[in-house]
Every structure is written in C-alpha cells, then in structure tokens.
C-alpha cells in the first residue's frame, strides 16, 4: 500500500494503526460467474466509522463485492468477516448489514412509512421491537431524511429524489453497524446529488455507521470517502485516501481513472536520491521525485495533472520539466480554463489555469506558442 507515501503526518488513522482490528475483513475473496471472475482474489480491510468507496468503471466487480458483503452472493472462494465474525455462509437476512439498492427496490405495495418500518418487523416475535418503539424509530428516520409529509405515499407517487431518501431511510432504520450503498446518488441530477453527498457524510458522522459505497463517479468518491479502493477487472488496483489516490496514483489506470492526467512516456536515465530523471519520448528531460526506486532504463510514464502545469516565466532553466507547444483548444469553465496544448504531432497536453483575469484580458489565445513547466513534486512516475 502506498499510505506511507502520503506527505501528511497526522495522528494515526485506523488503517495506519497496526493494532487496529478491521470491522470488515475481506480475505482473498473470489466470485466467479461461469468463466468470468467478477471479483478476483480481493483482500480488503475496512475499519469502524469509515466512509469507504469502491470506485471503478461498470463491470469492474465493485457491485459484486458489495453484494458479497450483503450476503446476496456467496463467494466462490475466500472468507468475509464482519465485526470479527465469519459471515461467509450467513444468509443476507441474518447479517448485521443493510443495503441501499441502486434501483432503491422500494416495495411498490407499501407506502413510505411501511417501507421504512419493514426491517423493524422482521425479527422473530420474541426479539421484535415493541410497536411503539417501531413507530418512534420510523418517525425518527422520516424526520432525519425530511420525508415526514410523504409517509402515506407509495413509491410510484414519489420523485426520484424522494424515493432515494425513502430508500436511505429504510436502510438506516435498523441502525445497522454497516451500511452498503450501491450507486446511492446515481439517479439524481447534479444539484440534488451534491446536496445529498454532504448529507450522507453528515449522517455518517452523526450515526457513527460504517459506510461502504459503490460508485463510478470519481467526484462523488472524492467528496465523501475516507478511503477509496479503485477496482478494475475484479481486482483492487489501489486503496488509499482520496488525496493520496489523486496525488499519488500507483499505476496508469488509477491515474487516468481519477481526474485528468497528462502522461509522458519515456525511460529512466538517471537516479539521484529520490529524484528520477526521465528521458521522455518527446525528447525532453523530466526530473521527478519518486519514492519508489527505479532501475536505469525502466520504461515509465510521468504523470502530471493539468492543474499542476503552469506557464513558464522567461526562458531560463535547463529545459527540464518544460514543454513547448501551441494552444489548440480553450475550454472556459468560469473559474478555470482548460487549455489543450499541442506539444508533438501526436500529443496534446492539458493545462488548467485559474482565471484570475476576466476572460477578455487573458494572455493566452488560440494558436499561441507557450512554454509550460511543472515542479518535480507535482507528479508521479508510473510503471506500466
């Protein structure tokens, strides 16, 4: 894991503490559907109170992993532990886990109140919560998600956002220790999604629940998560904090999946302490800091995020970490502008600059030759 590459040194997070025991432990779990490995030998520890996101493109196995946690799928191999207990063979109805489904899966023949209260009525008679308490809990959940006035409505009488709240209220009603969210915000429009993201994080902090969520939306994952696992083809590529995933991706796939990134292919020509000198295919030299040792001649890619690029001031310098090109495209987004600069016939470089000046007074325009530069700590060196 690359947690140790994080430059921040603050108090130990649970996943950094060797003595902390994980709340959820996924141990070498494989799930096969026919010949397809939906989840391929995945091991993962998730700690109490985390907001953990499984991120990946569709079909990467993230939803299957979530369903394995819920007990809706049985693993082909491997064990799953929740709160220290082996739950691999425990059916879904006996697990201390609740899930919010991507489709919400609200019961169409019950109103909001009955949907939310459904989970509370399922325990065997002796252990069931008394009716008064059940009603109170339902009221509490409806109030928490501000859908009290919709309590008598059926799912088909609700809007998308209201349905999502009802589904969330239902999954929270039993006060699960572990809540699984499958693309919780997928069906919402941008504005509603952003509001709900913050609400989810607030809820999580208030109720102290461990959240595991599945999403293909990297922005959603970045906003909400304590840690992110990036998955591809049934395997976990990297597990880390949003910052570390963004700043220090451990492979090209992760770098390209999260945000945009400029990749310059080349090979290592010199190593000096933690500095690596890369001769890029563009013919320029790039000096980057790297915490991984590289052998000379290793083919690598230097990854630099568009916002880490800046306009070079004056000539000067030794030409290291510098690229010359011509502005080909400008996307004005209000707060920032994205410039696409052609540095070679087959390579465009993206540079994001904050719009300090109004657009009309900006220095850069189409077809303008520019020199861009970045510092050795502004990117990472990745192997294939």
């Amino acid at each position, binding site marked *: 894991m690359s947690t140790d590459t994080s430059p921040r040194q603050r108090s130990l997070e649970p996943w950094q503490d060797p003595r902390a025991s994980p709340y959820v432990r996924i141990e070498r779990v494989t799930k096969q559907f026919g010949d397809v490995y939906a989840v391929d030998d995945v091991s993962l520890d998730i700690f109490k109170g985390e907001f953990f996101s499984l991120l990946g493109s569709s079909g990467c196995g993230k939803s299957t992993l979530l369903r394995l946690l*819920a*007990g*809706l799928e049985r693993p082909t191999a491997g064990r799953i532990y929740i709160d220290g207990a082996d739950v691999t063979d425990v*059916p*879904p*109805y*006996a697990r201390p*886990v*609740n*899930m919010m*489904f991507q*489709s919400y*899966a*609200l*019961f*169409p*023949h*019950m*109103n909001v*109140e*009955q949907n*939310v*209260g*459904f*989970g509370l009525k*399922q*325990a065997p008679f002796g252990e069931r919560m008394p009716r008064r308490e*059940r*009603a109170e809990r*339902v009221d509490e959940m409806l109030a928490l998600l501000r859908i009290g006035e919709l309590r*008598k409505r*059926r799912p088909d009488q609700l809007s998308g956002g209201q349905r999502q709240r009802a589904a969330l209220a*239902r*999954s929270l009603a*039993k006060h699960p220790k572990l809540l699984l969210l499958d693309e919780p915000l997928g069906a919402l429009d941008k504005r509603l999604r952003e509001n709900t993201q913050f609400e989810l994080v607030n809820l999580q902090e208030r109720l102290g629940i461990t959240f595991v969520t599945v999403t293909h939306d990297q922005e959603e994952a970045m906003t909400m998560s304590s840690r992110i696992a990036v998955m591809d083809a049934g395997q976990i590529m990297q597990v880390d904090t949003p910052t570390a995933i963004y700043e220090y991706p451990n492979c090209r796939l992760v770098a390209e999946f999260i945000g945009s990134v400029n990749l310059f292919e080349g090979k290592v020509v010199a190593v000096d302490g933690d500095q690596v000198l890369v001769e890029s295919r563009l013919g320029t030299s790039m000096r980057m800091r790297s915490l991984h040792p590289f052998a000379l001649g290793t083919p690598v890619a230097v990854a630099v995020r568009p916002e880490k690029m800046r306009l070079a001031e004056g000539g000067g310098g030794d030409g290291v970490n510098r690229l010359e090109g011509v502005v080909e495209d400008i996307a004005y987004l209000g707060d920032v502008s994205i410039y696409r600069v052609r540095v070679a016939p087959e390579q465009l470089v993206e540079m994001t600059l904050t719009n300090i000046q109004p657009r009309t007074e900006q220095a850069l325009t189409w077809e303008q030759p520019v020199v861009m530069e970045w510092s050795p700590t502004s990117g990472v060196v990745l192997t294939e």
Partner: protein
Amino acid sequence: MTPMSASGLPRIARVRRLGRLLNIGVPYLWIGLFFLLPFVIVLRIGIAEPALAQPPYTALWQWVDSGLLEIRISLQNFSLVLEDDLYLAALLGSLQVASVCTLLCLVIGYPMAYAIATAPVRWRVPLLLLVVLPFWTSFLIRVYAWIGILKSNGLLNNFLIWLGLIDEPLQILHTQLAVYIGVVYAYLPFMILPLYANLTRLDRGLLEAAADLGCRPLRAFRKITLPLSLPGIVAGSMLVFIPVVGEFVIPDLLGGPESLMIGKVLWMEFFSNKDWPLAAALATLLLALLLVPFVLMQRLEQRLQSDDDAARP
C-alpha cells in the same frame, strides 16, 4: 402556421381526432357487434313467449288490422326461473363447482406459475409450451379422453388395480369427482398463464431488499410476492370462475345425474324442451349474476390498495 380547413379546425387536429375515433371505435364496434347485439337478441327472446313456430317464440310486435301496433312483453319466463327450485339448485351447484375448482386451480397453478417464472430463461418457453400444449387438441376430444381414463375399466382404475391399491374399479366417471377433475384439468392453463405473466414481472430486487432487511424467504413470499401477485390471482380466478359457472360439456360428459349445473339446464331448456324464451331468460339472469363476482373482485382489489394506504406501519 397550420393550414386551416373550412371547418375552422387545423387539419392536423382533425386528422388526429379522426384517428382517435377510429382507435376507440374499432373495439367498441367489435364489442357492440359480437357481444352487445347477441345479448340484445337473447334478451328479446327472453321476454317473448314460447310458440309452436319457426323460430319457436312469439314476435315482439305485430300490426293489428286497425293499424295499431301491438307490443307483447312477457316477464313470465323470468319469474318462472326465479320461482322454480330446479334453477336455483343448478345455479348453486354451478357456483359451488366453480368456487372449488377455482381454488384448486389456484393451489395447483400458483406453484407451477412460480416455478416457470423463476426457472432459467431458456427453460421458460418450453415449460410454457407444455402448459398450452393441450390446446393443440380440441377441447371436446380432451374431455372425451377423460372418459377413457376415468371409466370403470379405464386407465386409472386398471392402473390402481395393477398397483394393488384397490380390488375392484372405483366409480369415478359420472360422479361429481369426475367433474372436478375435468374442470381443473381443462381450466388450469387459464390460471397459470396470467399468474406467470404477473410473476415474471416481479422485481427480484425486491426479494433481495426484503432479505437484506432481515426477512426470511417464506415470510418474504407472504409479504412481497403474494401481495404483488394479487392482480394475477384475481385475473386467473376470474378466467377460471366465470366460464366454469356456465360450463356445459364437462358436467354433461363426465358428470352424473347429481351434477346439476346451470349450463346443462340451459342446454336442456334450449334443445330438449325447445323453450327458447325460458332458456334466454335463464341466460340473461346468469350473465347478470356473473357480473356480481366481477364487480366484487374489482372492488376488493381497489379496497386492498386503499387499505394498504391507510394501514399502520
């Protein structure tokens, strides 16, 4: 601008209205021509009196010499049907057979429909084909085949004797039991098909959600699958109940003297007694009576929905 026609309506709107009229008109025309019109004819015969004529009932109106129009309406048939115990008994017999058979079809058909709906996709079409396969053979022939199975030296009795379960043949044919067997056999597909259509639409995600909330499979069936398949149950039950009430062939061929059903009585009045007006009156009353469960079931369905709305959490 839309070109305006002479009538002042935009042409597109007129075409649309015509299209809509055609759209609604065709089924109305169909129902009017093949359901309403025959019913009016039956009703008209029902209020006539029997006569030795061709057709064997009196005319509804006729011109009397003086240029007066004479209209004769007789309610005698209706009052006769309502007074005579025979008809009431036949009706009750029919309702009993229909109720019991509907229930049996439901109990047998539901698991079958459920099994087909939850079978792997590649199995579903073959299984459904098996359900409708008997329709390839004429209904009448299939009922006759049951005679061969149920009669004293028929397949069933011979088989039971061969097994050593019985020493001498059971009298099944020409009993009420044979009627039940025949009706359940003949009408089972009408229960299975609407149930299947309903159950395949059931979102499996709902059962997963129920399990996730701590609901065991059997309870999930009771709380989720069963209530959501109620429209299928109602549709299937009506498709069985209503035609069975008027069923004539099965009680006539398989039933005995004690299996008195209204359809059989109707047939007797019509063909044996040649009393068309009485038969027509009987048919009219039967139709009116069959509307009652139809309306009741629709009411029940509506009430179940609003009940759910008002129910406590």
